[in-house]
């Protein structure tokens, strides 16, 4: 049995909430390119901006399997909000909690407060995409401060966030060991947000560049020691990939369910199109692939909960689930025919949202690099 099967009641409750509170926001968020305030508020009440955080920080203290269930279920009805949940919890709050000190946790992770807020994650730069170690942002030590200059791109929740954890080079000599991480606070002089990206999908999520122009960052905003930033972020991405895998799974399931219902009710040639073998096989292939992706997503989640190493498993889950998502959203769209090409059904949006899952938090190509590296490292001759 999959690791998530013992959480059937939890999933049921999560699904009901998503269907009632999130699904109705999805289309407008996509059309207006605005992250819904209602989602920010309701998810805060629900505690979903602090899924992993312990109760004393206002969190739910849930495990990775439960977290994957939440991300999957949100994305089953809306990719944009699901992506925002994933980016904030895994990437934004995660590293501050895991690598920060108690003062930093208390300062930045105060989720018991009445107002919800988001934390963004800044790793990618215009010239450092798949090559994340090619970071050019530079934090120049100046007494008790660092003077930060540089740019980060494709930052989820760039406008909405209150804090951002970012990487910058503290040692000009190069190499990934010269990279450190810092928490930036909105309102710091020289810290600005670029124009909102006009994206293919996940249009309800808030994506923009972050610009640093002589930002004076106090030393106490550095997370961990100098030179630990790249390692912290790579560990963070191991977990983040599980959440993008869960996102891909949710989108695939959402599209598959719509296609299945459509196949059963759409009449052509005098019978439901589900009577045709060509459609039946599409449904069968979608269901098989979803089941396999589910195994990888919850298998990797369980490994994380068990405290095992899961770098390869999370990359495999992300790679496979995102490719399954591509297949399923595309196939579902095909089942819907011309209607699938329009916003009459959410499948059109899910298909556009899907493409992010093969790009964000490491492209499919990078997942293959990670997986192959682990395989070769662990192969004994």
């Amino acid at each position, binding site marked *: 049995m999959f690791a998530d099967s013992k959480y059937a009641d939890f999933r049921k409750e999560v699904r009901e909430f998503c269907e009632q509170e999130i699904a109705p926001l999805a289309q407008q968020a996509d059309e207006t390119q605005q992250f819904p305030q209602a989602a920010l508020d309701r998810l805060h009440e629900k505690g979903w901006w602090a899924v992993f955080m312990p109760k004393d920080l206002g969190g739910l203290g849930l495990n990775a399997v439960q977290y994957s269930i939440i991300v999957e279920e949100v994305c089953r009805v809306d990719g944009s909000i699901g992506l925002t949940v994933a980016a904030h919890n895994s990437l934004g709050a995660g590293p501050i909690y895991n690598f920060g000190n108690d003062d930093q946790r208390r300062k930045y992770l105060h989720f018991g407060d009445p107002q919800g807020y988001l934390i963004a994650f800044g790793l*990618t730069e215009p*010239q*450092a*995409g*798949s*090559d994340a170690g*090619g970071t050019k942002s530079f934090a120049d030590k100046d007494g008790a401060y660092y003077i930060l200059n540089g740019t980060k*791109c*494709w930052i989820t929740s760039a406008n909405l966030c209150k804090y951002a954890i970012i990487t910058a080079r503290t040692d000009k000599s190069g190499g990934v060991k010269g990279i450190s991480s810092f928490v930036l606070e909105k309102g710091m002089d020289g810290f600005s947000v670029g124009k909102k*990206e*006009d*994206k*293919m*999908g996940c249009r309800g999520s808030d994506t923009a560049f972050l610009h640093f122009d002589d930002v004076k960052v106090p030393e106490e905003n550095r997370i961990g020691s100098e030179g630990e930033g790249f390692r912290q972020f790579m560990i963070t991405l191991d977990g983040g990939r599980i959440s993008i895998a869960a996102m891909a799974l949710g989108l695939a399931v959402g599209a598959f369910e719509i296609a299945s219902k459509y196949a059963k009710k759409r*009449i*052509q*040639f*005098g019978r439901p199109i589900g009577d045709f073998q*060509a*459609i039946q096989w599409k449904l069968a292939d979608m269901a098989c692939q979803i089941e396999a992706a589910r195994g990888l997503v919850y298998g990797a989640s369980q490994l994380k909960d068990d405290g095992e190493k899961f770098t390869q498993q999370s990359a495999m889950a992300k790679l496979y689930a995102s490719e399954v998502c*591509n297949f399923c959203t*595309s196939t579902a*769209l*095909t089942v819907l*025919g*011309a209607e*699938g*090409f*329009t*916003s009459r059904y959410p499948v*059109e949006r899910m*298909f*556009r949202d899907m*493409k*992010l899952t*093969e*790009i*964000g938090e490491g*492209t*499919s*190509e990078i997942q*293959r690099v990670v997986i192959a590296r682990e395989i070769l490292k662990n192969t004994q001759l």
Partner: protein
Amino acid sequence: MDFQLSEDQIMLRDTAREFAEKRLKPVAEELDAKGETPMELIQETAELGFFGLTAPEQYGGLGVDSLSYALIIEEISKACAAHAIMISVHNSLVIKAINNFGTDEQKEKYLPKLAAGEIIGAYSLSEPNAGTDAGSLQCRAIKTGDNYVLNGTKSWVSSAKFAGIFITFVLTNPEAGRKGVSCLIVEKDSPGMQLGVPEKKMGLKASDTREVSYLDGQVPVTQLLGEEEHGLRVAFSLLDAGRIGVSAQALGIAEAAFDEALSYAKEREQFGRPLVDFQATQFKLAEMATRIEASKLMTYRAAFLYDTGARNSKEISMAKLYASQTANYVTNEAVQIHGGYGYVKEYPVERYFRDARVTEIYEGTTEAQKMVISRALIKGDV
């Protein structure tokens, strides 16, 4: 086999290419965002004669061969696939319908204006409940005196907003079922005709797509195209030409995406070297280019066969099937090669990816092509 294009074909292709690169490519992103095509671009297209590609010279058309036609659609699609579909529907469905089935009067009345681009043609076959199963259409036309009275709804009508005529398929004899379908030339603003709101589509956003509905629509009986109850014969005879157009469109989208991906992969450096230095990227490019080459040969051959008059529906469906699948494959890979930049509108691959999807849906879905191909195979019609 001779794979050389004629001088005329090269000239037409180059004319289309120049127009596409100079006039369409620079504005394609803007048209996509606005969701419309400005009249001046339609006018310029008309001046090139591209609305009369399939009309005989006696009616002011260029009367080009199908391969030339495919080359032009391919070039236009490289810059703006939405513009190409307007040209394709107008030429391969509307002009051909009137030219092949119209009376002399109908030809005289409509072909010169269509060929000159003074009026744009729309094609109305699908209905909400008649998609792949086109024969099950329900839009009813009852002959009453000098008019047909129309009631029903047609879906996915391209260019509906500004079209001058609509080739419309209606049921004149419900007892005869699929054999009771007739074809009418419906003029815009006919009494009882109503245009729906623009469809919110994933791609081809600059192309206008709507429902057209009739509430006691009045269409003179003289607007019957071909014989009464021979409507599906008209529709099915046009499928091949339409599919060559979409095949060429898919090919053009794929080529444009490939060109963008190749130049990006040469420029973009990661890990201290350009992406083209990585074998994974090299092999992606090789696979994309190979599939494009196959699509191109199939599309050109389908166009060539069409003009020979030989049985060729199977080959044409194969070309449409493969070229549209290739467009989806190639645009998907082109987005991957661009990474995050492929997901935003600053780079055209984002649009190519959205535009490619419909090539597997309209003029017969991929599944409908497989029905045509497998039927021909099983009947031994190879």
